[in-house]
Protein backbone atom coordinates (compact mmCIF):
# COMPACT_ATOMS: atom_id res chain seq x y z
CA UNK A 1 0.00 0.00 0.00
CA UNK A 2 1.37 3.40 -0.93
CA UNK A 3 1.67 6.22 1.57
CA UNK A 4 -1.41 8.48 1.61
CA UNK A 5 -0.70 11.43 -0.67
CA UNK A 6 -2.02 14.02 1.74
CA UNK A 7 -0.44 17.43 1.98
CA UNK A 8 -1.16 19.66 4.87
CA UNK A 9 0.22 22.77 6.53
CA UNK A 10 0.72 22.27 10.21
CA UNK A 11 0.51 25.62 11.94
CA UNK A 12 1.96 26.16 15.36
CA UNK A 13 -0.99 26.63 17.77
CA UNK A 14 0.80 29.70 19.11
CA UNK A 15 0.54 31.30 15.67
CA UNK A 16 -3.20 30.70 15.57
CA UNK A 17 -3.61 31.99 19.10
CA UNK A 18 -1.51 35.04 18.30
CA UNK A 19 -3.59 35.68 15.20
CA UNK A 20 -6.86 35.48 17.14
CA UNK A 21 -5.55 37.81 19.84
CA UNK A 22 -4.22 40.09 17.10
CA UNK A 23 -7.64 40.37 15.44
CA UNK A 24 -9.16 41.32 18.77
CA UNK A 25 -6.47 43.91 19.39
CA UNK A 26 -7.17 45.36 15.92
CA UNK A 27 -10.86 45.49 16.82
CA UNK A 28 -10.04 47.32 20.06
CA UNK A 29 -8.01 49.86 18.05
CA UNK A 30 -11.01 50.35 15.76
CA UNK A 31 -13.25 50.93 18.78
CA UNK A 32 -10.71 53.36 20.18
CA UNK A 33 -10.56 55.28 16.88
CA UNK A 34 -14.36 55.37 16.84
CA UNK A 35 -14.53 56.66 20.43
CA UNK A 36 -11.91 59.34 19.73
CA UNK A 37 -13.78 60.43 16.61
CA UNK A 38 -17.04 60.61 18.54
CA UNK A 39 -15.41 62.58 21.33
CA UNK A 40 -13.32 64.92 19.21
CA UNK A 41 -14.02 65.25 15.50
CA UNK A 42 -11.04 66.82 13.76
CA UNK A 43 -9.37 66.22 10.44
CA UNK A 44 -6.93 63.76 11.99
CA UNK A 45 -9.45 61.71 13.95
CA UNK A 46 -11.85 61.73 11.00
CA UNK A 47 -9.11 60.55 8.66
CA UNK A 48 -8.08 57.76 11.03
CA UNK A 49 -11.65 56.66 11.60
CA UNK A 50 -12.74 56.80 7.97
CA UNK A 51 -9.57 55.37 6.40
CA UNK A 52 -7.49 53.49 8.98
CA UNK A 53 -10.42 51.83 10.79
CA UNK A 54 -11.87 50.13 7.66
CA UNK A 55 -8.36 48.96 6.75
CA UNK A 56 -7.94 47.44 10.21
CA UNK A 57 -11.37 45.80 9.98
CA UNK A 58 -10.41 44.32 6.62
CA UNK A 59 -7.15 43.03 8.09
CA UNK A 60 -8.94 41.50 11.08
CA UNK A 61 -11.55 39.91 8.80
CA UNK A 62 -8.89 38.39 6.57
CA UNK A 63 -6.96 37.04 9.57
CA UNK A 64 -10.07 35.54 11.15
CA UNK A 65 -11.22 34.10 7.82
CA UNK A 66 -7.76 32.57 7.39
CA UNK A 67 -7.93 30.85 10.78
CA UNK A 68 -11.51 29.70 10.14
CA UNK A 69 -10.52 28.28 6.75
CA UNK A 70 -7.52 26.52 8.27
CA UNK A 71 -9.70 25.04 11.01
CA UNK A 72 -12.27 23.91 8.45
CA UNK A 73 -9.66 22.26 6.27
CA UNK A 74 -8.09 20.54 9.25
CA UNK A 75 -11.47 19.35 10.49
CA UNK A 76 -12.61 18.10 7.11
CA UNK A 77 -9.25 16.46 6.38
CA UNK A 78 -9.29 12.66 6.52
CA UNK A 79 -5.95 12.46 8.26
CA UNK A 80 -4.31 14.00 11.24
CA UNK A 81 -0.54 14.19 11.22
CA UNK A 82 2.04 13.70 13.91
CA UNK A 83 5.77 13.73 14.27
CA UNK A 84 7.64 11.40 16.62
CA UNK A 85 11.24 11.52 17.71
CA UNK A 86 13.43 8.35 17.91
CA UNK A 87 12.40 6.06 20.83
CA UNK A 88 9.00 7.76 21.21
CA UNK A 89 6.28 5.19 21.84
CA UNK A 90 3.60 5.74 19.23
CA UNK A 91 1.18 3.19 20.60
CA UNK A 92 1.37 0.91 23.60
CA UNK A 93 0.56 -2.78 23.74
CA UNK A 94 -2.73 -3.29 25.56
CA UNK A 95 -4.06 0.24 24.91
CA UNK A 96 -7.41 0.80 23.26
CA UNK A 97 -7.13 1.39 19.52
CA UNK A 98 -8.31 4.72 18.19
CA UNK A 99 -6.34 5.25 14.99
CA UNK A 100 -4.69 3.54 12.09
CA UNK A 101 -1.22 4.88 11.34
CA UNK A 102 0.36 5.32 7.91
CA UNK A 103 4.08 5.99 7.89
CA UNK A 104 5.02 8.90 5.67
CA UNK A 105 8.61 9.20 6.74
CA UNK A 106 11.02 7.25 8.98
CA UNK A 107 10.99 3.77 10.53
CA UNK A 108 9.23 2.15 13.47
CA UNK A 109 9.68 -1.06 15.41
CA UNK A 110 6.76 -3.30 16.28
CA UNK A 111 7.57 -4.86 19.64
CA UNK A 112 5.66 -7.54 21.53
CA UNK A 113 6.30 -8.04 25.19
CA UNK A 114 5.53 -11.50 26.62
CA UNK A 115 6.46 -12.19 30.21
CA UNK A 116 9.18 -9.55 30.42
CA UNK A 117 10.63 -10.67 27.10
CA UNK A 118 10.55 -8.12 24.26
CA UNK A 119 10.48 -9.41 20.72
CA UNK A 120 10.80 -7.12 17.72
CA UNK A 121 8.13 -8.45 15.42
CA UNK A 122 8.68 -6.13 12.52
CA UNK A 123 10.44 -3.08 11.22
CA UNK A 124 8.11 -0.86 9.25
CA UNK A 125 9.05 2.04 6.98
CA UNK A 126 7.62 4.59 4.60
CA UNK A 127 4.38 3.49 2.95
CA UNK A 128 3.58 0.85 5.57
CA UNK A 129 0.93 1.00 8.23
CA UNK A 130 0.14 -0.24 11.71
CA UNK A 131 -2.58 -0.09 14.33
CA UNK A 132 -5.33 -1.16 11.92
CA UNK A 133 -5.63 -4.77 13.21
CA UNK A 134 -6.84 -3.60 16.59
CA UNK A 135 -9.37 -1.32 14.91
CA UNK A 136 -10.81 -4.14 12.83
CA UNK A 137 -10.86 -6.65 15.65
CA UNK A 138 -12.02 -4.02 18.14
CA UNK A 139 -9.40 -5.25 20.58
CA UNK A 140 -6.48 -3.61 22.37
CA UNK A 141 -3.18 -3.27 20.52
CA UNK A 142 -1.31 -6.55 20.53
CA UNK A 143 2.08 -4.88 20.30
CA UNK A 144 3.91 -1.67 21.07
CA UNK A 145 5.11 0.50 18.21
CA UNK A 146 8.16 2.63 18.84
CA UNK A 147 9.85 5.16 16.58
CA UNK A 148 13.28 4.00 15.43
CA UNK A 149 14.09 7.21 13.59
CA UNK A 150 12.27 10.49 13.33
CA UNK A 151 8.84 9.46 12.10
CA UNK A 152 5.99 11.31 10.49
CA UNK A 153 2.69 9.47 10.45
CA UNK A 154 -0.71 10.15 9.01
CA UNK A 155 -3.39 9.03 11.46
CA UNK A 156 -6.83 7.92 10.40
CA UNK A 157 -9.46 7.84 13.13
CA UNK A 158 -11.35 4.62 13.89
CA UNK A 159 -14.66 5.77 12.45
CA UNK A 160 -13.12 7.12 9.26
CA UNK A 161 -10.98 4.00 8.89
CA UNK A 162 -13.97 1.63 9.20
CA UNK A 163 -15.95 3.80 6.77
CA UNK A 164 -13.09 3.62 4.32
CA UNK A 165 -12.99 -0.15 4.58
CA UNK A 166 -16.71 -0.40 4.10
CA UNK A 167 -16.99 1.88 1.09
CA UNK A 168 -13.62 1.68 -0.66
CA UNK A 169 -13.35 -1.95 -1.68
CA UNK A 170 -9.87 -1.81 -3.27
CA UNK A 171 -8.55 -0.42 0.03
CA UNK A 172 -10.16 -3.35 1.85
CA UNK A 173 -8.45 -5.90 -0.39
CA UNK A 174 -5.16 -4.07 -0.28
CA UNK A 175 -5.26 -3.83 3.47
CA UNK A 176 -6.24 -7.45 3.97
CA UNK A 177 -3.42 -8.66 1.75
CA UNK A 178 -0.96 -6.42 3.57
CA UNK A 179 -2.20 -7.62 6.98
CA UNK A 180 -1.96 -11.23 5.82
CA UNK A 181 1.61 -10.68 4.71
CA UNK A 182 2.49 -9.01 8.00
CA UNK A 183 0.84 -11.82 9.99
CA UNK A 184 2.75 -14.43 8.03
CA UNK A 185 6.01 -12.64 8.58
CA UNK A 186 5.30 -12.20 12.28
CA UNK A 187 4.27 -15.84 12.68
CA UNK A 188 7.48 -16.95 10.98
CA UNK A 189 9.46 -14.64 13.20
CA UNK A 190 7.76 -15.95 16.31
CA UNK A 191 8.30 -19.57 15.24
CA UNK A 192 11.93 -18.84 14.62
CA UNK A 193 12.20 -17.14 17.98
CA UNK A 194 10.47 -20.05 19.75
CA UNK A 195 12.76 -22.56 18.03
CA UNK A 196 15.75 -20.55 19.07
CA UNK A 197 14.48 -20.49 22.68
CA UNK A 198 13.93 -24.26 22.69
CA UNK A 199 17.36 -24.76 21.22
CA UNK A 200 18.90 -22.51 23.85
CA UNK A 201 17.06 -24.27 26.71
CA UNK A 202 18.01 -27.74 25.29
CA UNK A 203 21.66 -26.82 25.39
Amino acid at each position, binding site marked *: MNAPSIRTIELDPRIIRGTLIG*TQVLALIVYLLG*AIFLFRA*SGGTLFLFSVAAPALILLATLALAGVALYRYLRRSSLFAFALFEPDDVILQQGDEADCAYFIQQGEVEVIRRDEEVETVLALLGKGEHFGETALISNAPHHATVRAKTRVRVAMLGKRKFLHMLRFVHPAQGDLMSSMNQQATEQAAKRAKSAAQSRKDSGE
Partner: protein
Amino acid sequence: MSRLNPQIAAIVECTIPVALLVSVPARALAQQQAFQQDPVDQYGSHFLTVVIFIGVGLVLYSLFRYRGKDVGPISWGLLIAGAIVFPMILSGVGTILVFERVKTVQLCGSCHLTMKSYVDDMMNPNSNSLAAVHYTNRYIAENQCYECHTSYGMSGTLEAKKQGIIDIYKYYTRTFQLPLQLRHPYRDGDCLKCHAGATKFIAAHEETQERIFAGKLTCMQCHAETNPAHNVGRADLVGQRFNHRSNR
Protein backbone atom coordinates in the same frame (compact mmCIF):
# COMPACT_ATOMS: atom_id res chain seq x y z
CA MET B 1 -14.56 42.26 43.89
CA SER B 2 -12.46 39.34 45.07
CA ARG B 3 -15.55 37.56 46.43
CA LEU B 4 -17.14 37.52 43.01
CA ASN B 5 -16.74 34.77 40.49
CA PRO B 6 -13.45 35.58 38.66
CA GLN B 7 -15.18 35.70 35.28
CA ILE B 8 -17.84 38.10 36.50
CA ALA B 9 -15.18 40.19 38.23
CA ALA B 10 -13.23 40.33 34.96
CA ILE B 11 -16.32 41.50 33.08
CA VAL B 12 -17.05 44.17 35.68
CA GLU B 13 -13.44 45.33 35.67
CA CYS B 14 -13.57 45.64 31.89
CA THR B 15 -16.96 47.25 31.78
CA ILE B 16 -16.37 50.17 34.15
CA PRO B 17 -13.52 51.87 32.23
CA VAL B 18 -15.25 51.11 28.93
CA ALA B 19 -18.45 52.71 30.18
CA LEU B 20 -16.50 55.77 31.31
CA LEU B 21 -14.74 55.95 27.97
CA VAL B 22 -17.81 55.72 25.78
CA SER B 23 -19.96 58.02 27.92
CA VAL B 24 -17.59 60.94 27.24
CA PRO B 25 -18.86 61.68 23.70
CA ALA B 26 -22.43 61.59 24.93
CA ARG B 27 -21.62 64.10 27.66
CA ALA B 28 -19.68 66.29 25.23
CA LEU B 29 -22.67 66.36 22.92
CA ALA B 30 -25.01 67.24 25.78
CA GLN B 31 -23.16 70.54 26.28
CA GLN B 32 -24.96 71.86 23.20
CA GLN B 33 -28.52 73.08 23.53
CA ALA B 34 -30.95 70.32 22.71
CA PHE B 35 -32.62 72.34 19.95
CA GLN B 36 -29.26 73.01 18.31
CA GLN B 37 -28.26 69.40 18.02
CA ASP B 38 -28.28 67.73 14.68
CA PRO B 39 -30.53 64.67 15.12
CA VAL B 40 -28.37 62.55 12.83
CA ASP B 41 -25.30 63.42 14.87
CA GLN B 42 -27.13 63.05 18.16
CA TYR B 43 -28.77 59.67 17.56
CA GLY B 44 -25.83 58.44 15.52
CA SER B 45 -23.45 59.24 18.39
CA HIS B 46 -25.66 57.51 20.92
CA PHE B 47 -26.04 54.46 18.73
CA LEU B 48 -22.31 54.24 18.08
CA THR B 49 -21.62 54.70 21.79
CA VAL B 50 -23.73 51.62 22.48
CA VAL B 51 -22.01 49.73 19.64
CA ILE B 52 -18.58 50.59 21.03
CA PHE B 53 -19.68 49.65 24.54
CA ILE B 54 -20.99 46.23 23.49
CA GLY B 55 -18.15 45.58 21.05
CA VAL B 56 -15.39 46.38 23.54
CA GLY B 57 -17.20 44.31 26.17
CA LEU B 58 -17.38 41.33 23.83
CA VAL B 59 -13.72 41.58 22.85
CA LEU B 60 -12.50 41.97 26.42
CA TYR B 61 -14.71 39.15 27.66
CA SER B 62 -13.45 36.91 24.86
CA LEU B 63 -9.83 37.83 25.62
CA PHE B 64 -10.22 37.19 29.35
CA ARG B 65 -12.37 34.09 29.01
CA TYR B 66 -10.69 32.30 26.11
CA ARG B 67 -7.28 34.03 25.90
CA GLY B 68 -7.03 33.64 22.14
CA LYS B 69 -8.21 30.03 22.00
CA ASP B 70 -11.00 29.00 19.65
CA VAL B 71 -12.59 26.20 21.58
CA GLY B 72 -16.13 26.08 20.27
CA PRO B 73 -19.03 27.90 18.68
CA ILE B 74 -19.40 30.39 21.54
CA SER B 75 -15.78 31.50 21.35
CA TRP B 76 -16.08 31.82 17.57
CA GLY B 77 -19.34 33.74 17.93
CA LEU B 78 -17.71 36.17 20.33
CA LEU B 79 -14.72 36.54 18.03
CA ILE B 80 -16.82 37.22 14.94
CA ALA B 81 -19.20 39.56 16.76
CA GLY B 82 -16.52 41.48 18.67
CA ALA B 83 -13.81 41.66 16.02
CA ILE B 84 -15.82 41.81 12.79
CA VAL B 85 -19.56 42.51 13.09
CA PHE B 86 -19.56 45.34 15.63
CA PRO B 87 -16.52 47.11 14.11
CA MET B 88 -18.27 46.90 10.72
CA ILE B 89 -21.43 48.43 12.19
CA LEU B 90 -19.28 51.10 13.86
CA SER B 91 -17.50 51.88 10.61
CA GLY B 92 -20.65 51.73 8.46
CA VAL B 93 -22.87 53.89 10.64
CA GLY B 94 -19.85 56.03 11.55
CA THR B 95 -19.50 56.92 7.87
CA ILE B 96 -22.84 58.74 8.10
CA LEU B 97 -21.46 60.75 11.01
CA VAL B 98 -18.26 61.37 9.05
CA PHE B 99 -20.29 62.92 6.23
CA GLU B 100 -22.17 65.04 8.77
CA ARG B 101 -19.20 66.18 10.81
CA VAL B 102 -16.91 66.79 7.87
CA LYS B 103 -19.01 69.88 7.12
CA THR B 104 -18.51 71.59 10.48
CA VAL B 105 -16.43 74.74 10.88
CA GLN B 106 -14.41 73.06 13.60
CA LEU B 107 -13.42 70.24 11.27
CA CYS B 108 -12.62 72.53 8.31
CA GLY B 109 -10.40 74.62 10.60
CA SER B 110 -8.61 71.57 11.99
CA CYS B 111 -7.15 70.72 8.57
CA HIS B 112 -7.06 74.01 6.67
CA LEU B 113 -4.56 75.49 9.09
CA THR B 114 -3.47 78.23 6.74
CA MET B 115 -7.02 79.55 6.91
CA LYS B 116 -7.05 80.06 10.66
CA SER B 117 -7.15 83.85 10.20
CA TYR B 118 -10.16 83.43 7.96
CA VAL B 119 -11.96 81.36 10.56
CA ASP B 120 -11.03 83.85 13.30
CA ASP B 121 -12.38 86.69 11.19
CA MET B 122 -15.59 84.80 10.54
CA MET B 123 -16.14 84.40 14.26
CA ASN B 124 -15.24 87.99 15.07
CA PRO B 125 -18.44 89.94 15.95
CA ASN B 126 -16.68 93.23 15.15
CA SER B 127 -15.70 92.24 11.63
CA ASN B 128 -17.69 93.56 8.70
CA SER B 129 -16.77 90.72 6.36
CA LEU B 130 -19.53 88.77 4.66
CA ALA B 131 -18.33 85.63 6.43
CA ALA B 132 -18.58 87.31 9.85
CA VAL B 133 -21.99 88.85 9.09
CA HIS B 134 -23.36 85.47 8.09
CA TYR B 135 -21.74 83.64 10.99
CA THR B 136 -22.28 85.98 13.91
CA ASN B 137 -25.90 86.70 12.98
CA ARG B 138 -26.47 82.98 12.40
CA TYR B 139 -27.82 83.70 8.94
CA ILE B 140 -26.29 80.33 8.27
CA ALA B 141 -27.15 78.15 11.22
CA GLU B 142 -24.30 75.65 10.96
CA ASN B 143 -21.56 74.33 8.67
CA GLN B 144 -20.78 77.89 7.60
CA CYS B 145 -17.54 77.14 5.69
CA TYR B 146 -19.22 74.30 3.88
CA GLU B 147 -22.39 76.21 2.99
CA CYS B 148 -20.52 79.01 1.22
CA HIS B 149 -17.68 77.02 -0.29
CA THR B 150 -19.38 73.97 -1.70
CA SER B 151 -21.96 73.74 -4.38
CA TYR B 152 -25.05 71.59 -4.43
CA GLY B 153 -25.15 67.84 -4.25
CA MET B 154 -22.59 65.11 -4.01
CA SER B 155 -20.41 66.54 -6.79
CA GLY B 156 -20.04 69.81 -4.88
CA THR B 157 -18.92 67.96 -1.77
CA LEU B 158 -16.54 65.73 -3.70
CA GLU B 159 -15.11 68.70 -5.56
CA ALA B 160 -14.54 70.51 -2.25
CA LYS B 161 -12.83 67.43 -0.76
CA LYS B 162 -10.65 67.06 -3.83
CA GLN B 163 -9.56 70.68 -3.54
CA GLY B 164 -9.04 70.16 0.18
CA ILE B 165 -6.64 67.28 -0.45
CA ILE B 166 -4.69 69.49 -2.86
CA ASP B 167 -4.56 72.13 -0.11
CA ILE B 168 -3.20 69.60 2.38
CA TYR B 169 -0.54 68.60 -0.14
CA LYS B 170 0.41 72.23 -0.64
CA TYR B 171 0.49 72.80 3.11
CA TYR B 172 2.89 69.94 3.84
CA THR B 173 5.09 70.62 0.82
CA ARG B 174 5.05 74.35 1.63
CA THR B 175 4.11 75.19 -1.94
CA PHE B 176 1.23 77.53 -1.17
CA GLN B 177 1.36 81.28 -1.64
CA LEU B 178 0.17 83.98 0.70
CA PRO B 179 -2.19 85.70 0.64
CA LEU B 180 -4.40 82.80 -0.32
CA GLN B 181 -6.16 83.11 -3.63
CA LEU B 182 -9.36 81.45 -4.78
CA ARG B 183 -8.72 78.99 -7.57
CA HIS B 184 -11.54 80.49 -9.58
CA PRO B 185 -13.85 83.49 -9.16
CA TYR B 186 -16.35 82.93 -6.39
CA ARG B 187 -19.44 81.28 -7.81
CA ASP B 188 -22.55 83.42 -7.63
CA GLY B 189 -24.55 80.24 -7.35
CA ASP B 190 -23.17 79.69 -3.85
CA CYS B 191 -24.74 83.01 -2.78
CA LEU B 192 -27.89 82.65 -4.83
CA LYS B 193 -28.69 79.15 -3.63
CA CYS B 194 -29.86 80.86 -0.40
CA HIS B 195 -30.56 84.47 -1.37
CA ALA B 196 -32.35 84.11 -4.69
CA GLY B 197 -36.08 84.41 -4.16
CA ALA B 198 -35.77 86.01 -0.73
CA THR B 199 -38.00 89.07 -0.28
CA LYS B 200 -35.13 91.23 0.88
CA PHE B 201 -32.99 90.14 -2.06
CA ILE B 202 -35.76 90.81 -4.59
CA ALA B 203 -36.41 94.26 -3.13
CA ALA B 204 -32.74 95.23 -3.12
CA HIS B 205 -31.90 93.77 -6.52
CA GLU B 206 -34.91 94.83 -8.55
CA GLU B 207 -32.78 96.50 -11.19
CA THR B 208 -29.80 94.18 -11.20
CA GLN B 209 -31.51 90.82 -10.75
CA GLU B 210 -31.71 90.00 -14.46
CA ARG B 211 -28.03 90.74 -15.02
CA ILE B 212 -27.06 88.71 -11.96
CA PHE B 213 -29.01 85.67 -13.13
CA ALA B 214 -27.59 86.09 -16.63
CA GLY B 215 -24.08 86.02 -15.19
CA LYS B 216 -23.27 89.51 -16.40
CA LEU B 217 -22.90 90.91 -12.90
CA THR B 218 -21.34 89.04 -10.03
CA CYS B 219 -22.29 89.38 -6.38
CA MET B 220 -18.76 90.27 -5.32
CA GLN B 221 -18.48 93.08 -7.86
CA CYS B 222 -20.76 95.16 -5.62
CA HIS B 223 -20.55 93.56 -2.18
CA ALA B 224 -16.79 93.14 -1.91
CA GLU B 225 -16.37 96.91 -1.80
CA THR B 226 -18.26 97.39 1.46
CA ASN B 227 -18.10 93.88 2.85
CA PRO B 228 -15.16 91.73 1.75
CA ALA B 229 -15.73 88.01 1.91
CA HIS B 230 -13.09 87.70 4.64
CA ASN B 231 -11.42 90.61 6.34
CA VAL B 232 -7.95 89.14 6.32
CA GLY B 233 -4.96 91.17 5.26
CA ARG B 234 -1.44 89.99 4.68
CA ALA B 235 -0.49 91.35 8.12
CA ASP B 236 -2.80 88.76 9.70
CA LEU B 237 -0.98 85.97 7.94
CA VAL B 238 2.63 87.00 8.50
CA GLY B 239 4.35 85.42 11.46
CA GLN B 240 2.10 82.39 11.67
CA ARG B 241 3.80 79.11 12.24
CA PHE B 242 2.88 77.68 8.88
CA ASN B 243 4.21 80.37 6.57
CA HIS B 244 7.86 80.56 7.52
CA ARG B 245 8.99 79.23 4.14
CA SER B 246 6.50 80.92 1.88
CA ASN B 247 7.46 84.31 3.32
CA ARG B 248 11.08 84.07 2.34
